[in-house]
């Protein structure tokens, strides 16, 4: 991978640049969609850091996304905070939740880890319903327009919303790139490939995975908070198992362990559902068949296959 620095930075900065340029080009419908996809891609990047690079197959990331969402939503709703501190609150709640879950769940491995994270996420979802008097339960909360102004930018308007989503996406993508190219990123991959050997080399698996979980929680939390503030709604449906499955599907489809994978996966899946829903209302089946197809025929995802065949330097 050494010697490809310029290509790598050019590719990733290029994508960020193209997405900025699209702001002036796209028709309004796709403009809103893309803003949504970029925020969801940040969530998926968090998932990719845990699953794609470190091999932590979590089935409970909805918990972290919802933690950020409710962290932001409730702080505006109950305390009347404005968007900037609310975003910070969401980020913090996401990280704290990741710390709690990670500290416990990381004591298990493999299938047990998947079930434990699934159970924690389910408990989180039930908590949202149980404390319905505060969280609004199934109906959720609509965030007041006054709380949706981030440092002077009104997130309910198209232009600032897209630009904030773009900035968040850009920061997330470049942060992700820097992380996996840093020495710590190599340790993460080492844990995925051979945990015993990495431990023998002096890296503590539990500590490494806990740090990874915190970073993953940060991405998920900030994405959840931004999603809540940008689209003005917080609801229990975002805490359901489906929102643990979706980032996994995006990452698998785009390519696990590739920095650009989550974005490509989220983009494709979003438009796959968008296009298929004009023919059929069977969206669940679209998700199901996509998941089956990826697992059966493209276990490395799209960019994973591209890296294997043509671009071995893809980080």
């Amino acid at each position: 991978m050494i010697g490809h620095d310029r290509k790598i930075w050019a590719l990733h900065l290029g994508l960020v640049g193209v997405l900025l340029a699209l702001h002036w080009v796209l028709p309004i419908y796709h403009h809103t969609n893309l803003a949504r996809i970029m925020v969801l891609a940040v969530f998926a990047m968090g998932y990719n850091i845990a699953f794609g690079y470190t091999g932590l197959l979590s089935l409970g990331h909805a918990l972290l996304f919802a933690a950020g969402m409710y962290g932001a939503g409730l702080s505006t709703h109950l305390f009347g905070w404005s968007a900037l501190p609310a975003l910070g609150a969401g980020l913090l709640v996401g990280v704290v939740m990741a710390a709690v879950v990670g500290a416990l769940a990381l004591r298990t491995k493999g299938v047990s880890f998947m079930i434990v994270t699934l159970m924690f996420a389910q408990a989180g979802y039930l908590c949202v319903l149980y404390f319905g008097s505060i969280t609004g339960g199934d109906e959720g909360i609509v965030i007041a327009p006054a709380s949706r102004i981030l440092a002077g930018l009104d997130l309910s308007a198209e232009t600032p919303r897209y630009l904030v989503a773009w900035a968040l996406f850009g920061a997330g993508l470049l942060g992700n790139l820097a992380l996996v190219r840093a020495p710590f990123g190599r340790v993460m991959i080492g844990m995925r490939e051979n945990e015993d050997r990495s431990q023998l080399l002096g890296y503590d698996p539990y500590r490494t995975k806990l740090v990874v979980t915190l970073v993953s929680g940060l991405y998920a939390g900030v994405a959840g908070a931004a999603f809540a503030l940008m689209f003005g709604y917080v609801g229990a449906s975002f805490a359901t198992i489906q929102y643990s499955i979706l980032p996994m599907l995006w990452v698998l489809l785009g390519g696990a362990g590739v920095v650009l994978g989550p974005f490509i996966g989220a983009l494709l899946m979003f438009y796959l559902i968008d296009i298929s829903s004009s023919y059929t209302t069977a969206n669940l089946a679209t998700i199901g068949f996509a998941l089956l197809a990826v697992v059966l025929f493209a276990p490395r995802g799209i960019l994973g296959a591209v890296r294997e065949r043509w671009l071995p330097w893809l980080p």
Partner: protein
Amino acid sequence: MEGLVTSSVLALTAVGLSLVFGVMRVVNVAHGEFFMLGAVSAWFVTQAIPGPPWVSFSVALAVCPLIVAGLAAAADRMILARLNYDPEATILATIGLLYVFQQAALSFFGPDARAVTAPFSLRLQFPWFGYSGYKLFVILAAVLILSAVWWLMQRTKAGLVMRATQMDRTTAQAFGINVNRVYSSVFALGAGLAAVAAVLIVPISQAYYLMGGEPLLLAFTVVIIGGLGSLRGTLLAALLIGLSDGIVSMFFSPTLAKIIATLLVAMVLVVRPQGLFGAKA
């Protein structure tokens, strides 16, 4: 009584899940959907067959598990076998199946909950309280079927072959056992057991396309507490949880009870991954 009915249905569902995990090492996330398909197909069968309820219900009880088992065997052949039963890939695949089945039920059955009439409405009346005869029948049927499963596993050649495959897949293969066929039958058997449980319970509850989530989580709970892959532990845990479910929900609201139960199960997995009754990991 209510608790025993819950326990029986839970035991059937959980034993199916436990068998699949024990023999194949596959965590079948779609297990709850096989349960749901059993209930939904029971509705279709009882609608299609004329005559008194007990006739159509008996047909449903015989046919629906077979339909579901066939479906499961096909899913195993077409999907799980191709993944070489890799634990993580199969979980992802069964999640995909879950969505496909759910959507199929939603499209063909509709979003409403529908009732199936009980085959008979006998009531055993005692001087101061009464028992629903049908609930007794559910318990009895569950005990019979579970005994049959136990007999199958412990006393027949098929059971021996399954247990051999569970212990050591490669050696079993070396002794001429068609491991792939064993896996298909176990997967079908597991799904069939879930479907039987669903057909039995559907006159008491209702058929609904999202009904698979609850039994899935409960069955997971049972299997985990009983020890992954241990049949005896699974039965004990089903009894324990079915009975305590009623008692706990008297003191707490059902949602709070579920939260506590879910967290407890997660903690069991963290602290004692072999389960409360499991002997070794």
